C-alpha cells in the first residue's frame, strides 16, 4: 500500500522530520511517536552541552548539530529501515532495566520480556527456595543458566525480579564476542539489579561444543535460542525487512537442533526446569516429535503470549514436582 500524497503533505505541515519516517512507519501516528522519542533522546544527550556557559555563537552551533542528528536519525529510521533501538542505543526492558543495543547483537523483544517476567515472578512467589522459612534441602544457591544470552537481557531480568536476601547466581553464555561485550556493558549500566548475594556472570562459548559439566546444580535453564527457519527468514511475509537487513543472522536462523542440545545440557547439568522461547505451535510439535524431551522424565507444555501465539516451551522434571509443579498453572 503506497503512502497517499495527502498523508505526506499533512506530515510535512506538522514537522519537516515526519515525512522522513513515513516510508518505514507508513502512518503519521507512529511517525509522530518515534520522532518524539528520537528528539527526546538527542535533546537529553545534548542537554549537558547546552547547559555549559558559552557565547551565543557556540550555542547556535550546538543547536544546529542537534537538528542534524535528529534529521540523520529520522532518515536512517524511515528510508533505510534501521531499527530504532540501534539508532537510540537502548531498549527499556522489565521494570527498571535499560538494555544497551548495538549492531551485531539481537534486540530484546517484548515477548521475551513478557514470558521472562511471568516465569521470574512465578519463581519468586511459588518456589520453595524463596518462600520456605528454613532451607529444607542443603541447597544454598539458586542457579540459573541462560543460554544464547545475547544482550544479557533475560539474565538481568531474572536478577531484577529475584532480588532477595537469598543467594542467586545467574550465568549467561553466548557464542559471539560482540554479545559478550554488550552483555558486560549492560550489567555495568544496570548494576542496581545486582546485590551482595546476587551475581550475574557472562561467558563466551558455543553450546554445541562447550563442556558445561562443571555446572552441576542448575535449577532452571532459560533460553531464547535462534529459532527462525531459513525459509521463514527469507520470506517477506514472515520476517520484517529491518530485521533481515540489520539484525545478526547468527542470532536468528536456527531450529529444533537447538532445543535438542538444550535438553541434553539439562541432563548433564541436572537441571530441574527448562523454559525456552519458540517460534509457534508448529515448532512445539516439531520439538516433541524429534524426541528432544524424554516424557518419562519431564512434564512439558506450551505457554501463550499476549498476542495469542504459542511463544514458550515450559518443562520440568517429574521428580521436582514440589519445586516446579506450579508451572502447570502457566501452561495451557
Amino acid at each position, binding site marked *: 500500500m503506497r503512502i497517499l500524497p495527502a498523508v505526506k503533505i499533512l506530515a510535512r505541515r506538522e514537522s519537516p522530520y515526519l515525512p522522513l519516517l513515513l516510508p518505514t512507519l507508513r502512518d503519521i501516528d507512529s511517525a509522530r511517536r518515534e520522532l518524539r522519542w528520537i528528539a527526546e533522546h538527542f535533546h537529553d544527550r545534548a542537554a549537558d552541552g547546552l547547559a555549559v556557559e558559552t557565547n551565543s555563537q557556540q550555542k547556535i552551533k550546538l543547536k544546529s548539530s542537534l537538528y542534524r542528528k535528529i534529521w540523520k536519525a529520522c532518515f536512517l529510521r524511515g528510508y533505510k529501515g534501521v531499527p530504532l*533501538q540501534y539508532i537510540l542505543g537502548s531498549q527499556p526492558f522489565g521494570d527498571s532495566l535499560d538494555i544497551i543495543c548495538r549492531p551485531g547483537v539481537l534486540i530484546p523483544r517484548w515477548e521475551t520480556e513478557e514470558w521472562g517476567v511471568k516465569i521470574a515472578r512465578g519463581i519468586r512467589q511459588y518456589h520453595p527456595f524463596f518462600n520456605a522459612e528454613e532451607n529444607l534441602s542443603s541447597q544454598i544457591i539458586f542457579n540459573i543458566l541462560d543460554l544464547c544470552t545475547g544482550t544479557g537481557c533475560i539474565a538481568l531480568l531474572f536478577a531484577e525480579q529475584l532480588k532477595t536476601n537469598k543467594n542467586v547466581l545467574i550465568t549467561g553464555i553466548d557464542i559471539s564476542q560482540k554479545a559478550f561485550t554488550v552483555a558486560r556493558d549492560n550489567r555495568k549500566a544496570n548494576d542496581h539489579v545486582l546485590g551482595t548475594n546476587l551475581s550475574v556472570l557472562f561467558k563466551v562459548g558455543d553450546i554445541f561444543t562447550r563442556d558445561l559439566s562443571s555446572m552441576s546444580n542448575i535449577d532452571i535453564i532459560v533460553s531464547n535460542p535462534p529459532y527462525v527457519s531459513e525459509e521463514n527468514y527469507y520470506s517477506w511475509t514472515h520476517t*520484517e525487512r529491518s530485521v533481515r537487513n540489520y539484525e545478526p543472522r547468527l542470532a536468528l536462523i536456527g531450529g529444533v537442533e537447538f532445543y535438542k542440545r538444550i535438553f541434553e545440557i539439562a541432563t548433564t547439568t541436572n537441571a530441574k526446569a527448562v523454559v525456552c522461547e519458540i517460534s509457534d505451535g508448529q515448532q512445539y510439535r516439531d520439538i516433541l516429535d524429534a524426541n528432544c524431551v524424554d516424557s518419562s522424565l519431564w512434564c512439558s507444555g506450551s505457554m501463550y503470549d499476549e498476542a495469542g501465539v504459542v511463544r514458550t516451551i515450559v518443562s520440568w522434571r517429574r521428580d521436582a514436582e514440589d519445586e516446579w509443579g506450579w508451572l502447570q498453572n502457566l501452561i495451557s
Partner: protein
Amino acid sequence: MIPQSLLLPFTACVQSSILRCNILAYQRVQLSCSRVARRVLSSSSPWLKGPPPMPPRPSISEDEIEEVFIKGGGKGGQKINKTNSKVQLRHIPSGLIVSSQATRSREQNRKIARRKMAEELQYQNDPESSRRGKLIEKKQKSKRNQRKKSLKRARLREAERQGLPEQEKLLQPPCDSSHEIEPSESIYDDADQSELENDLRILREIEEEELQNSQSVQTDLVEDEYEVDYTETVDLLSDRNEKKKRR
C-alpha cells in the same frame, strides 16, 4: 497599620490586566520577600491565597481491571521488531477501555494507563469536582485570559498604527478579532494528538511523584524552584517600587 508604600504595588497590580494572570506568583514571591511584606501577603483576602487545591490523584484497585490485548495471531517473536508497546486496560464492572502507548517502556505505559483509567472513572462519576474536571476548567480559564490578552494587544497595535496618544489607546473600540488574534489551536487538531498530550501530562505527574518520593527529606530544593520560576514577577515588583520612590 500597613504602610501606604507597601499597599501601592498591590493595588496597581490588581488594576493591571497583565499581572492579574500572574496572581498565583504572589504565593511564591512571599518566600523571597521581606518579613513585613510576607505578613501583608499572608492576609486572608481570597486572591492572595491562590487557587483552591486540586482534588487528590485518584487510584484504582487491581481487581477491577484486566489487561486486554489485541489478538494478532501469526508472526512475532524474533521475526518482528516492534517499537511501540501499547497497553490496553479494561475496567470489568463498567466495560471502559483505556489504552496508552506514550513511551517505549511497557512498564511506564502500564502505569500511565492505570492512572488514566482512574482519572476517567473519577471524571465519569463526578464531572465537576474530579481532578480532570478541574484541569479542564483551568485550561479554559487560561485560554479565556489568553484571548483577552491578545485582543488587548491587537487593540494597542491598531491604536499605534493610527498614531494616537497613550490615553486614547485604551479607549479604542475592540477591533475585528478574526484576523488579529494569534491562532491558539494547532493545525493538526485531532483526537490522537490530544490523547498523546494527556498521556504525557500523566507521565510527567508520575515522574514528579517518584521524584518527590525519593527526595521527600530535602525541602530546600522546592523553595529554590519557586524562586527561579518567578524572578520575573519579583523584578517587576521591584521596578514598580523604584518608580514610586522616584515620584
